[in-house]
């Protein structure tokens, strides 16, 4: 009997972290997550990034960093001693219009995150040194010139004096702090607006669940803030100039008459959010599993092939599920028409007439409620249509065709 049980074999492909980082499925998941993150952010800026009054001088809490940076710039220009922001406009996207406002900052962020990720792969000692170096440089940049000039000034004038409020403007060394501070403020503004992207990228490539959660959290907070600030009750109280989305859904003219134009960006944002979330978390979940496997299992071809299976199916399902979620949501939001048609079956009855004409069905309420009913119906379809069996048959068929062709 003892001879029947073989020990674990070793294959060429393994599940070591170094190999996994270069595995195409993992990379595909990471790239999918990254693309969805970028697209989601761009879609969000398109939907939530405009003010009511389009005017270069007006500021509103829209999701557009250039508004804040321009307002800051204008404030600085109006100072008696005009100043300018240290990071140039071509880099921050100020002055551009449309999506052009975001590409450059996104590119810079990507470079920085790439650097950070590569740094994460180095030894702890090197990482610590680089971190210390960056921190030291930041501190030196902030206060270095100020402290040096102040000390030298005091040495040369043989006098102890405060670095501000002096009649001799050369002795107001505190002015050296303004430049660096402006840079930090500018960076802070950029980080604030691009927080979902920054933490999302760090999460995807640095394999950190908490950072992906941060990205999702900050996105939801931005959406929630926009919803709150554009809420009629708030808008009537505070003048914010924030462009609000229309209250009612219009006629379905997009996607072959399935969806109203107001819904399209929202639907895409929610889909991209889910794709980002699922791909980002999945990468970490799978790599974590492989990482925790004992050494012998990492080399075992059975584990490797099943790991591949899992990743391949996940990728397939990401595509399939995203498509179907989009379709089902679009159909669901169109379902109110279908309800009216269904009610028409009882043509001529008092109830069907009043339901057909009911305001409830015409307002967003009806649309959403009927959409929820449709979604529940779709969920219930699983008991009627054997999806797994159908997909299994298709898979088997594909395999047979492939085997025959081989």
């Amino acid at each position: 009997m003892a001879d029947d049980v073989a020990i674990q074999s070793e294959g060429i492909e393994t599940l070591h972290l170094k190999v996994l980082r270069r595995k195409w499925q993992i990379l595909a998941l990471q790239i999918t997550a990254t693309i969805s993150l970028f697209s989601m952010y761009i879609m969000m800026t398109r939907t939530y990034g405009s003010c009511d009054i389009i005017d270069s001088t007006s500021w509103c809490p829209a999701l557009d960093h250039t508004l804040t940076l321009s307002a800051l710039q204008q404030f600085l220009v109006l100072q008696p001693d005009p100043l300018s922001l240290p990071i140039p406009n071509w880099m921050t996207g100020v002055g551009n219009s449309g999506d052009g406002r975001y590409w450059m900052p996104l590119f810079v962020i990507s470079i920085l995150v790439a650097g950070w990720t590569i740094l994460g792969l180095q030894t702890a000692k090197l990482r610590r040194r680089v971190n210390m170096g960056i921190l030291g440089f930041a501190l030196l940049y902030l206060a270095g010139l100020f402290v040096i000039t102040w000390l030298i000034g005091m040495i040369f004038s043989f006098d102890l004096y405060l670095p501000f409020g002096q009649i001799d403007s050369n002795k107001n060394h505190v002015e050296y702090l303004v430049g660096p501070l402006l840079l930090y403020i500018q960076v802070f503004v950029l980080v604030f607006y691009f927080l979902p992207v920054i933490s999302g990228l760090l999460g995807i490539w640095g394999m950190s669940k908490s950072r992906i959660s941060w990205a999702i959290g900050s996105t939801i907070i931005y959406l929630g803030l926009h919803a709150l600030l554009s809420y009629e009750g708030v808008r009537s109280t505070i003048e914010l100039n924030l462009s609000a989305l229309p209250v009612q859904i219009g006629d379905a003219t997009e996607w072959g008459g399935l969806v109203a134009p107001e819904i399209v960006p929202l639907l895409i944002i929610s889909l991209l959010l889910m794709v980002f979330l699922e791909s980002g978390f999945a990468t970490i979940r799978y790599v974590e599993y492989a990482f925790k496997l004992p050494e012998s299992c990492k080399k075992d071809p059975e584990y490797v092939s099943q790991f591949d299976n899992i990743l391949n199916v996940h990728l397939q399902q990401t595509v399939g599920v995203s498509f179907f979620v989009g379709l089902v949501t679009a159909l669901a939001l169109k379902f109110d028409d279908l309800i009216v048609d269904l009610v028409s079956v009882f043509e001529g009855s008092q109830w069907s007439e009043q339901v057909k004409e009911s305001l409830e069905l015409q307002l967003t309420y009806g649309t959403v409620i009927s959409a929820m009913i449709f979604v529940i119906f779709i969920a219930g379809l699983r008991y009627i249509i054997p999806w797994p069996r159908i997909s299994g048959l298709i898979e088997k068929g594909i395999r047979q065709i492939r085997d025959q062709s081989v």
Partner: protein
Amino acid sequence: MAVPSLSGVGNWLRSPSGKRMVALSLFYLTLGLLFSTVAGTYITRSEVHQSAYGEDWNDMSAFRADIKNQGITTTSIVSSPLLLEEIQSPRDTVFVVSGIERDTISLPRFSADSSVIQLVEGLGYSTSEIDAISNFVERGGTIVVLDDFGYAQGLADEFGLGFSGHQLYDTQTWDPDLDFNYVWLNITNGFNYSTSSGSRTNTNPCIADEDSDGTPDFLEGIVVPTTEELGLCSHRWDSISATYNMDPGYDLLLNQPSAFDKGEAGENSDDNLYPIGFSTQDAYLDTNNDGKLTVGFSGTDAGSDEQGPFAMYVKYCRSRNCDNPDSGRAYFVTDGSLLVNSIYDTEGVESGAYGEFNKTPDINDNRRWALDLIAEALMSNDGNASISSDAQVIFDESRHQQPSFMGDTYNLLYYILIYFTNDWMAMLLMFLGLFVLFEFIIIKKLDPEPWRHVFSIIYYGYGDSRRYEYYGRANKIKQILLTRVRNVNSLTREEFDALPARDLQKMVDDPVLIKFIFEDRRYSMEEMIAVIKRIKTWGRR
């Protein structure tokens, strides 16, 4: 088949699972009873009438058909008038309430007055709904409230009116061809808002005639107007005689009307409430509800019915004398059946369209009055009879009995949803509910633990500190020493017990141990250790 024995059932009832099942059944039984009681209060079956979507003699399908024929959208509200808040263009909207037949579920609410919390809502519309309707009027909407003995009081209160809730008998204007329940309300000029205002026919585009040439302003210069040119005033055009009716008066036929409370019918025009239609002086309100006309000495005697005249049609305008065509209006008539098919559509009645109804009402102005007010609300007053594309008439079907149980349930579900997303108190409760749900999920919903093989072998352990203490006592040590002495000398227990002390001392042959055996005293730890050491070495010599 196995029949459970009585004792078996008894045992099961006494078992924890049995007790649990009984408790659960009782709980669900109570819950079911509670629910059915509450639901039963609201879903009481009764006759279906006054619906704009019903075709019976006591429904209002003819009125709705007229509006539709004029090219205006008709819609219904099946859940709650709270939805009026969602109307984007209230100025182009008329909200028709014909009979508020039932109450519905509502929660206690916070109020601004000293009572802080208002535990009981009035019957009919809830306070939030009344606020929504009032707000609708404020935003320029028009409402038409036709009710007699229903639940319109709450809404009327909001506008400073009081429905008496008693049937009105008019000895002068009752219709002898029909019966005493049918009463005529004759209005010479429907646009005499107040004694000082004079006739304000210009407030209605159908009869606005600034130059007083007998042709309405919007038809100025047109001899034979087309249907399009007539707009919403086509009902005033007689195509046979090619004449346009400019009569500002209305003879309205009412069925079992009520009246507004005296003194509350807003004779004071300061609050923009204009009583327009009155009963005659010989009208009596059946205040004692005996179903008979009881005339008292002064008309105010206890037990006698109250004598007229009573206001029966009151118009409210947001603007003074309804001068601003874009401001909101409210029409209150104390008869819910003013626009029912049997009275509204006399031609239809004659042609037998409403089979059940066997009376033949006289020709009346109910239709003209109703369509006039629709025109006033929806047609522009700028002389060209334009109608907004958003123009719509909404019928409140939320407080009408539905012909099917399914319809009632559908409406109730919608009502609950809309109530919980619009009423502040209900919203607060729902927020709390959602919060609790999330808390519950976060605390209780745990994912299954990952499987991991844990190598653990049970630690048997053993130890008894009291036992250790016992083995440290001098008596125990003494006993062990004696056993040792006995063993070394190969003596039985009896032999050893019978041994004289001197012999024992000889056997032991160690002064310290002998002293230890014979002396009964407390020993210090050090002494004890020394004794044990000696015992250990004792046998080996």
